[in-house]
């Protein structure tokens, strides 16, 4: 009933957080040592040239003026001009963001689809062989960095076995004419899946391992709940107890972990994109930093911050949808 109002309010509450992100990002980016103009023009530029460039990017004005200009720019969707690419930052981001989102979403889908059954089986067969296997797998998963998994996957499945391509990504929405060896839409989709497979696993393994661990411990808890004993005492079949009575209660901490996993996955995406040479947000950030393209650094950082905030909000809303005890703060 008031779920919609709650949703709107949560988004409204996020506005100060977003302004905070913009502020911190702006001042941090302006503290980066080195001068972008110097990089653009080389070590001995002509004075007029420097001033012209500074004026073009507004760097000649005092920092507080530039801050408010930037803030109002962000509010209207103008993230400035990339110094390195010489194109609007927003345009660059819109080009790259879908790639990263595709990678992240497929990694999370892979993680959730494998982790939840694994965790449930593990909890149900606690201390049996299936449980030991799943616990060892998830322990390895949480303690192995994603770039290492990526490299191993490339060596084994791309280099030795040759089952999957080692680099690049084909976007499922790409025009068949632009994709090499693909005449039809179906071909494009097939290639997209083919390319996505290894990076998805590289990025998703950590999430899968974390979700499995939480799912298991949460299910172990709820399977010992009094309500489960009650259901058993009333003749509810064991499969219904696991799938319904214990499961739904156990998902609350899992949702939290998935939401928080977004932040680690963003970091992981940067590394995974580097390993698999995927032109996504991660590569964009690295290019921006390497070239001191401070406009682009600010823009990409902001987008990461925004994605994270949205992740938290979606987590909260899902939580309140699943758990009737969460009030909307209105009583």
């Amino acid at each position, binding site marked *: 009933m008031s779920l919609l109002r709650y949703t709107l309010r949560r988004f409204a509450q996020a506005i100060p957080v977003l302004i905070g992100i913009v502020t911190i990002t702006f001042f941090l980016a302006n503290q980066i040592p080195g001068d972008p103009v110097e990089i653009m023009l080389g070590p001995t530029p002509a004075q007029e040239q420097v001033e012209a460039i500074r004026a073009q990017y507004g760097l000649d004005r005092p920092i507080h003026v530039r801050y408010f200009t930037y803030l109002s720019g962000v509010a209207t969707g103008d993230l400035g001009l990339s110094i390195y690419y010489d194109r609007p930052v927003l345009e660059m981001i819109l080009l790259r963001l879908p790639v990263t989102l595709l990678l992240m979403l497929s990694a999370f889908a892979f993680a959730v689809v494998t982790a939840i059954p694994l965790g449930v089986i593990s909890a149900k067969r606690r201390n049996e062989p299936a449980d030991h296997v799943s616990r060892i797998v998830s322990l390895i998963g949480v303690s192995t960095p994603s770039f290492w998994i990526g490299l191993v996957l490339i060596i084994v499945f791309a280099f030795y076995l040759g089952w999957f391509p080692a680099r690049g990504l084909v976007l499922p929405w790409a025009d068949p004419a632009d994709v090499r060896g693909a005449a039809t839409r179906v071909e494009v989709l097939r290639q997209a899946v083919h390319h996505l497979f290894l990076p998805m696993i590289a990025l998703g393994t950590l999430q899968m391992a974390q979700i499995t661990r939480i799912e298991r411990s949460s299910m172990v808890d709820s399977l010992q709940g*009094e*309500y489960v004993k009650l259901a058993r*005492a*009333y*003749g509810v079949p064991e499969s219904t107890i696991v799938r319904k009575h214990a499961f739904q209660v156990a998902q609350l901490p899992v949702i939290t972990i998935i939401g928080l996993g977004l932040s680690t996955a963003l970091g992981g995406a940067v590394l995974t994109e580097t390993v698999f040479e995927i032109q996504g947000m991660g590569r964009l950030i690295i290019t921006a930093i390497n070239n001191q393209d401070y406009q682009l650094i600010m823009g990409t950082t902001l987008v990461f911050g925004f994605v994270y905030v949205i992740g938290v909000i979606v987590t909260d809303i899902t939580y309140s949808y699943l*758990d009737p005890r969460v009030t909307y703060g209105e009583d």
Partner: protein
Amino acid sequence: MSEPLLSVRDLKTQFFTEDGTVRAVDGISFDVHEGEIVGLVGESGAGKSVATSSILRLVDSPGEIVGGEIEFKGETIFGLEEGDDGELRPRDEMLTEEEMRQRIRGREIAIIFQDPMESLNPVFTVGGQLREFIEINRDLDADEAKEEAIDMLREVGIPAPESRYDEYPHQFSGGMRQRVLIAMALACQPDLIIADEPTTALDVTVEGEILEMVTELQEKYDTSFIWVTHDMSVVAEICDRVNVMYLGEIIEQAEVDDLFYDTKHPYTSALLDSMPRPDRTVDELRPIQGVMPEAIDPPAGCRFHSRCPEAREVCREVHPEPRELSEDGEAPHTAACVKHDAFDVGYDESPPIETQATGGFSAGFTETGGEAE
């Protein structure tokens, strides 16, 4: 007397832990007849709850029923026989796990748990949970079950049951949740309801209301109850017959009036002395001395002798089985205490021993406390 509804004979349930075998229920026998409320009384750790979960064959691991017989309406809930290899094995007529689930649990024997706060699932509506159990155990479709659920909520005194049907457990008070659990039990129309300390977590006024309601509904539906409690005043209020448990054994069994006015076992007397009674005026309540020993290593002889004010040398050596002590024409009354002549093991000649209750090590401070006043 007619055939009992439920008959438990020499039931033994043990927990196999790393520290050893815990004999939580160690050979108890009792009957429940139709329309009766039978009390199962004892301190925490006496084995009451394990006994009730054994009846439904829902003992949690590492616990296991290791011996005895449980018969319910002519069906064998638990029963062993000696196989060809000399090992004990379940008898052929013993109900399978699937039969227990489909035919007994909920449908024939329902249970009300102690903690109303934890027993309802927090993420489903109260009505939905009630409806689910009714659907499973009454073969009704969803709409009929919902109607039945609302009627039942009304019956147990929940105001505006139609709207409360869609509410969640956290929107109910403790007393209301316990009423919901009672509604669940009654709505499945079982022949026997096991109430496992259902009022312990509630405050006294709510407890009173619930007991009154249960008495009324019990007469209306003619359901039998096993009422598990540690509270003698609850026993006095609602039970017809009482079994007193101590350390996994039933040490006294009698009709409720006989138990209160013709107490045969010192443990029962001690329990009664430790609670206020309107019919007796005392300066001070006398709590039972000491704590109950561990069921993992019960004392030899009578298990209560270490805390018994009437303990004698012989109590350390002889382990008494319950014996019939009633005179001809009286209601059955059994007790397991060698002080009664029926046991004839030389109690009267045996010298008294020092126990926690007769001035042993820990009884010291209560006595000095008494003198100082």
